[in-house]
C-alpha cells in the first residue's frame, strides 16, 4: 500500500525541530522586541504564523508516523524492525553509538501517541494561550519538547534515548516555569529538574554498567548478546539486577514514582496544556517506555521485577489516597497521574509489558482529555482552579462536561471504554502472572476503587450541584472556542474506542495490540501463554473482572452519596478526624520531610563548605602560597644592596666555587 515512506522516518523528529527553528526565529526577532518594549498592543500578525506552524509540524509528523507504521505493518511479523542511520555520531575506540532511528512495533505505538495526542494539544494550546504575551516562546518550547520526546522513543540506542531523556527534562523545566515571573512557577520548574536529576544519576550509572557488561549500547546488539553473555558468566543475575535497578531509578524520577514523585504536583504551575502533554501523556511515560524497551533485561532479574511492581503498586495506592482530599482540580489530576503511572509500572513488574504500554496509550487519551477539559473549565472561570468554588457547570459548559465525563468513566474502568480494558489486563496479570502476587492484585484493585471515587468526586464538585462560583466569575462563564473543544471531542472518541484494539480473548475479542507488540515483548507473551492461557482461569478471569467493576461502582456510588446526596457529609468526616484529614490534605507532609531531612542538610553542608572549607582552608592555602612567596621575596631582596662591592664579592664567591668544583672533579 505505502512503500518508501520509511526512508522518511527522519521527518518524524525533524518536523518538530523545524517548528522550533521557525517559531524560535519568530520568538527572537518578532516577539521579544515587543515584549521588551512593554507597550500594550493589538495581537501581532506573527501570532497567526506561529499558531499555524506550531501544530502543523506536529500534525505533519503524525502523518509520517502513521504512514510509517502502516508500511511496517505491511511487512511480515518477523520483519518489523527498521533502522535508519542518520549519521555515525560517536566512534571512539571500542565504543560506537550511531545517531539512528529505530522503528519497531513498540516505537511505532509511542510515536503515534506522542504526535497524535501532541497534535491535538498543540491545536488546543492555540486557543488556550491566545491571551498570552509570550505566545511564540510557548510553541518553541512545546515543539522542542515534542522533538526531544520523539528522539527518546525513536532512538536506536540507550545513549540517544538518554539525549531525548534529558531533552524532555529540560523542556519540562522550561514549560513548567513558563510564567517565570511567578516565584512558585520558577520554583516548581527547578524542583522538577532537580528531582529528575537524581533519577538521571541512576540512569547514567545504569548506562555505564550496561556498556561495561555488553560492550555496546545499541538495543538490538544488547538484547542479542544476552544469551551469550549469560552463558559465559559475564552477565550474572546480580549485574542484571544492578543495571535494571539503576535504570529504574531514572524511571522513578522521570515517571514520578515513590520517592521521586514530589515534583509532579508542583508542576501544575505550568500552563494546563503543558500538564496534559508532558505530565500526563508523554514525558512521564518515558520511564515506562524505557522499562518496556529493556524487558529482556528486566526478565533476567526477579529482584528488579519485584521492586518495579512493588514500587508501582505502592505509588498507585499512596497517590490515590492523596487525591481524595485535594481541592485544586489540577492537583487531583496530578496525583491521579502519579497513581496511574504506578499501574503501568506494576504491569511491567509482573511481566505484562504489553499491558503496561496499553495502559500508557489509553491513559494518554483520557488523562490528556481530563487535563484539557480542566483547562477549559479554568479558562471558562477566568482562572479559578479551586473546586470548592465551582459547581453546576454542566449547563454552562456542555461539551467540556460531556467529554470529561466520558474520560472519567474511562479512568474509573467502566466496561467498554478504553481504561477498562487496559486496567483490567494489568490487574489480571498481577494476579495470574508468574511474577505476580495476590497482594499486588489486591492493592491494584483497591487503588482502582479509590480512583473511581476521587475522579467522580471531581466531576460532581465541578459540574453538578449548586453553583459555588464567585459572582463576577459567574458572569463571564462561557464554553470554550472550537480550537479547544474539538480536541476534547476527538480525545473523547479515542478514550472510548482506544481500548478496542486490545479486547482480551476471554471476552471474545482478539487482542490486536498484544499481537502487534509480540515481536518486542515475545517473552511476556510466552510467559502468559505458557502458564495456562487455558481454560480453568477463564472463569477466574471473568470473576476478577466483575470484581474490579464492582469495586469501581462502589467508588462511584460512595462519591455520589457524599457529593450529591449528603453534601455536608464530607465536611463532617473531615472534622471528625482532623489529624488524619490534615495529614492527607498536606500530602502526608512528604515535601516537608524531604526539606528537613535532605534539602536543609545539603544546604547546611554547602554553607559549611563555603564558610569553613572554602573561605578558610582553600583561601588559606592560596593566600598562604602568596604569603610564602612574599616572605621569600622579602628575604631575597636584601641581596640587592646597591653596593658594587657586595656584587663583586658574590662574583668572587661564584668563581671560587666553580674553580673548586673543577679541581675536585
Amino acid at each position, binding site marked *: 500500500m505505502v512503500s518508501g515512506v520509511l526512508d522518511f522516518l527522519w521527518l518524524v523528529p525533524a518536523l518538530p525541530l523545524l517548528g522550533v527553528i521557525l517559531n524560535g526565529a519568530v520568538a527572537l526577532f518578532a516577539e521579544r522586541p515587543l515584549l521588551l518594549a512593554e507597550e500594550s498592543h493589538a495581537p501581532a500578525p506573527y501570532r497567526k504564523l506561529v499558531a499555524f506552524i506550531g501544530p502543523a509540524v506536529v500534525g505533519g509528523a503524525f502523518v509520517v508516523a502513521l504512514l510509517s507504521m502502516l508500511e511496517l505493518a505491511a511487512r511480515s511479523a518477523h520483519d518489523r524492525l527498521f533502522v535508519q542511520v542518520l549519521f555515525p555520531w560517536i566512534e571512539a575506540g571500542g565504543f560506537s553509538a550511531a545517531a539512528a532511528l529505530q522503528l519497531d512495533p513498540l516505537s511505532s505505538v509511542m510515536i503515534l501517541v506522542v504526535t497524535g495526542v501532541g497534535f491535538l494539544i498543540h491545536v488546543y494550546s492555540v486557543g488556550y494561550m491566545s491571551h498570552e504575551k509570550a505566545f511564540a516562546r510557548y510553541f518553541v518550547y512545546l515543539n522542542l519538547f515534542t522533538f526531544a520526546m520523539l528522539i527518546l522513543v525513536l532512538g536506536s540506542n540507550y545513549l540517544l534515548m538518554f539525549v531525548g531523556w534529558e531533552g524532555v527534562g529540560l523542556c519540562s523545566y522550561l514549560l513548567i516555569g513558563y510564567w517565570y515571573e511567578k516565584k512558585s512557577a520558577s520554583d516548581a520548574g527547578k524542583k522538577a529538574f532537580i528531582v529528575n536529576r537524581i533519577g538521571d544519576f541512576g540512569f547514567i550509572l545504569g548506562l555505564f554498567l550496561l556498556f561495561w557488561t555488553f560492550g555496546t549500547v545499541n538495543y538490538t546488539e544488547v538484547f542479542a548478546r544476552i544469551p551469550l553473555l549469560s552463558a559465559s558468566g559475564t552477565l550474572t543475575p546480580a549485574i542484571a539486577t544492578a543495571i535494571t535497578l539503576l535504570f529504574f531509578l531514572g524511571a522513578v524520577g522521570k515517571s514520578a514514582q515513590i520517592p521521586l514523585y514530589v515534583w509532579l504536583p508542583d508542576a501544575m504551575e505550568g500552563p494546563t496544556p503543558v500538564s496534559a502533554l508532558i505530565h500526563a501523556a508523554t514525558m512521564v511515560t518515558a520511564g515506562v517506555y524505557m522499562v518496556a524497551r529493556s524487558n529482556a533485561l528486566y526478565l533476567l532479574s526477579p529482584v528488579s521485577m519485584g521492586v518495579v511492581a512493588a514500587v508501582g503498586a505502592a505509588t498507585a495506592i499512596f497517590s490515590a489516597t492523596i487525591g481524595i482530599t485535594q481541592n485544586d482540580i489540577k492537583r487531583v489530576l496530578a496525583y491521579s497521574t502519579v497513581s496511574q503511572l504506578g499501574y503501568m509500572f506494576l504491569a511491567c513488574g509482573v511481566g505484562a509489558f504489553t499491558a503496561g504500554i496499553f495502559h500508557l496509550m489509553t491513559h494518554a487519551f483520557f488523562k490528556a482529555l481530563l487535563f484539557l477539559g480542566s483547562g477549559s473549565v479554568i479558562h471558562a472561570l477566568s482562572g479559578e482552579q479551586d473546586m470548592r468554588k465551582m459547581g453546576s457547570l454542566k449547563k454552562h459548559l456542555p461539551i467540556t462536561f460531556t467529554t470529561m465525563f466520558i474520560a472519567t468513566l474511562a479512568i474509573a474502568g467502566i466496561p467498554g471504554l478504553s481504561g477498562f480494558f487496559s486496567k483490567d489486563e494489568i490487574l489480571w496479570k498481577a494476579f495470574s502472572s508468574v511474577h505476580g502476587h495476590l497482594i499486588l492484585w489486591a492493592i491494584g484493585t483497591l487503588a482502582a476503587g479509590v480512583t473511581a471515587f476521587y475522579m467522580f468526586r471531581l466531576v460532581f464538585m465541578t459540574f453538578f450541584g449548586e453553583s459555588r462560583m464567585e459572582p463576577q466569575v459567574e458572569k463571564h462563564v462561557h464554553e470554550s472556542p472550537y480550537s479547544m473543544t474539538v480536541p476534547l471531542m476527538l480525545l473523547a472518541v479515542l478514550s472510548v474506542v482506544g481500548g478496542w484494539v486490545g479486547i482480551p480473548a476471554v471476552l471474545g475479542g482478539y487482542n490486536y495490540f498484544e499481537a502487534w507488540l509480540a515481536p518486542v515483548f515475545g517473552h511476556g507473551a510466552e510467559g502468559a501463554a505458557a502458564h495456562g492461557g487455558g481454560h480453568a482461569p477463564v472463569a477466574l478471569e471473568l470473576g476478577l473482572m466483575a470484581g474490579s467493576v464492582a469495586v469501581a461502582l462502589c467508588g462511584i456510588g460512595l462519591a455520589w452519596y457524599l457529593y450529591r446526596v449528603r453534601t455536608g457529609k464530607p465536611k463532617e468526616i473531615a472534622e471528625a478526624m482532623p489529624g488524619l484529614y490534615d495529614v492527607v490534605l498536606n500530602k502526608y507532609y512528604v515535601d516537608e520531610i524531604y526539606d528537613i531531612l535532605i534539602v536543609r542538610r545539603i544546604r547546611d553542608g554547602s554553607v559549611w563548605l563555603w564558610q569553613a572549607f572554602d573561605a578558610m582552608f582553600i583561601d588559606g592555602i592560596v593566600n598562604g602560597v602568596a604569603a610564602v612567596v612574599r616572605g621569600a621575596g622579602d628575604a631575597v631582596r636584601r641581596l640587592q644592596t646597591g653596593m658594587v*662591592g*657586595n656584587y663583586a664579592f658574590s662574583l*668572587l*664567591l661564584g668563581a*671560587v666555587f666553580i*674553580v*673548586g668544583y*673543577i*679541581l675536585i672533579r
Partner: protein
Amino acid sequence: MEPVLFILFGAIAVGGAIMVVTRKHPMASALYLILTLFAVAALFVLRQAHFLAAIQVIVYAGAIVVLFIFVIMLINVPENKLPVERVTGMRLLGVIAAGLFILETALLARRFAMPAGPAADSGSVQAVGRALFTDYLLAFEITSVLLLAAVIGAITLAKKKI
C-alpha cells in the same frame, strides 16, 4: 739566573700590588701601580716577550696610569673627605675568599704539565706582528673600533653638557 730574577720581580710586583690596594690616598696607589706595572714588564722581558714589555710600559704605565693621575687631580678630593675604610665582616670574608681563590689557582697550576714547544722567538716584534696581521687580523681591526667607541664614550660621559 731566571728563577732568581723571577722571584725578585715577582716580589716587587706583589708588594706593589698590595700597596696599591691598601693606600688611603689614591695618588699613592697610582704611584705604586706604576711600580707594579714596571715589575710586570720586567717579567715579560724575562720571558722573551719584548714587544709586550715595551707596550706594557708605553701604554699601561705611560698612558693609563697618567690618565688615572689626571683624574685624581681633577677630582681633587681633600684629604679629610676621603672615604673611611672600615674592617667589616663582608670585607674579611672577601679577603678570605680571595685567598681561597689563589689557593685553588695554585692547585690548578700544579696539575697542568705542559710540553715545551719549539724554542721559538715567539715574543719578538716580528713574531707578534706577523701573528697580529695574519691570524688575528679581524680581532685587531675590531679593537680599533673598540678604541673609537671608548673615545666617543669617554668624551660624551665626561662632558658637562651633552
